[in-house]
């Protein structure tokens, strides 16, 4: 593993690379490809956040207000609280993995399509 070679040459004066291009941001926003990208991403993030926040809120409420029930021992010294806590962590990891997978499959091609369309229509010059 080598830090520093993922993109070869070190970046020079950062903004210079982009100065030759001009962008019409409003026009890019109106592109159908862009609409689709934003819509898809928003839908997944809204659902994923709802699941993550919802379960986290339930977990927090349970450990705060249902202490006796949460102290129920399931197997040996493993309590309901412990099982739910570990379960919430596993769910968090699963949601993260789902996002990355969908991003690679759906969002990255759409991002490239937006760039191509923007160049085709003259929104990026």
């Amino acid at each position, binding site marked *: 593993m080598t830090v520093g070679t993922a993109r*070869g040459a070190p970046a020079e004066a950062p903004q210079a690379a982009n100065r030759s291009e001009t962008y019409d941001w409003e026009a890019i926003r109106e592109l159908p490809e862009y609409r689709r990208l934003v819509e898809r991403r928003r839908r997944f993030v809204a659902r994923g956040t709802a699941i993550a926040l919802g379960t986290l809120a339930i977990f927090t409420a349970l450990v*705060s207000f249902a202490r006796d029930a*949460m102290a129920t021992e399931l197997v040996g*010294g493993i309590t309901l609280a412990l099982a739910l806590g570990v379960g919430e962590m596993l769910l968090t990891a699963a949601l993260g993995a789902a996002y990355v997978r969908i991003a690679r499959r759906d969002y990255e091609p759409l991002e490239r399509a937006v760039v191509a369309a923007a160049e085709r229509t003259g929104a990026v010059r």
Partner: protein
Amino acid sequence: MIAAVQALPLSVFAVVVAITLTITWWVSRRQRTASEYLAAGRSISGLQNGLAIAGEYVSASTFLGVTGLIFLFGFDGVIYLVGALSAFLLLLFVLAERLRNVGEYTMADVLAFRLRRRPVRAVAAVSTLVIVCGYVLAQLLGGALLFETLVGIDFAPAVIFTAALMLIYVFFGGMRATTWVQVIKASLLLVFGALLTLLVLIEVGFDLPGMFSDAAAGADDTASYLGPGGLFTRPADAISVVVAYALGTAAMPHVLMRFFTVTDSQQARRSAQWALVLIGGFFLMVVVLGFGAAAILSKGEAGAIGTAGNMTAPVLAESLGGGAESTGGDILLAVIAAVTFATILAVVTGLVMSASGAVAHDLWANVVRRGDASDAETLRVARLTAVAVAIAGAGFTIAAGKGFNITFLVALVFAIAASANLPALVMSLAWRRFNTAGAVTGMIFGLVASVVLIGLSPPIWPGADSEGAPFALSNPAIVSVPIGFVGCLLGTLLSRRSEGERSFAELEVRSQTGIGALR
């Protein structure tokens, strides 16, 4: 247990420090520009960055602090872990890619993108400085405790020594070297954490249900040790800690800064994912280590851990290696402590880097010199800031003493970050009408509310009997985060001033697609 075995741990310490310093020197030879120094030339890969983020997380606050909290209080320590892991989902879903696409060096770049830059940068730099100083305090405490335990010198010199070492890394290194060192140390800590976990499992005969039962045997009340209620006596305390961790982690300046070092938004996304997986795995190990320590350690060994529990993991390592005075115990203790110490050094280095960025890039180059500062001048200010933060951090740490659990202190810092930074950051990315007045008001409201409430809370309020404290909760997040959001709303709705030159459309398109992002 300490005095007789100073030579071995000292030499392990020296070897770890020497190796990482050599790397730091070697990596930083071609460091000339501010982009190199503050953002590693935007050349870090997703896995490397994920490891570096994990390195920040699995050292003092988790490995030392949470292991100790679980050892002392049982399940309530796990609540910290659940809250903290959620933060990486927030980073992944909302912040990582957008930050990389929009920003340059600091969080304030994103905040100020379409707002008037000088007021926003000035306030963001102040909040970054407050957060960094608080977090440096917590990390220096961990580093100094390890050093004190192992080498047997007093607390105050240990703090000063740790801060001095940190400065050496900052001066030589910059962001690329910090990343390198963090990657190596994170890998080492993950490997040794796994080894310790394995040793615990062997010790308890792979009987996890039995291990938890044994862990509760020494507790006053089994139900509140294996279930909730051992640490957070009031329900609002647990909720507040979850809010602070879930929102604050995602708003820490040094974590946000890491997302500017990667090549593009895909790598930013991958680094958040790697961080989530690595840290999640380590958190599961910490659960086993904390309860395992309670099941395995005898009363005599528990004495070395300290009332705040911070030394649980190293003492457990010594016990698993064969106990105090045995060669195996000494070696395992020395290695675990040295690796943890090294990770802490890299964390404070990263923190000081983000403070340097805030002062040099935001305050000096953009506010004082109005974008007219040369690269060399920016670098000079960055290094001066590092010295100032190191001195302030060491001073605060010595003044605070070693009576606080590290995780408890970190939770307070996260509460400040969640209150001051997160509302403005999220609203500037998502709300078209959000304006400069909203950002400035929101950050000031959140910062002042969280700092004042911490000062009025039971653990900090002066006097032995904390019952008299004016604010009842030990963590203010549940109150101060809403205050931060209200500040953003009020400021935005009450101000009519028009905004900076860049539009919400530019921010949105850039953050969504990466068009126009810095390479």
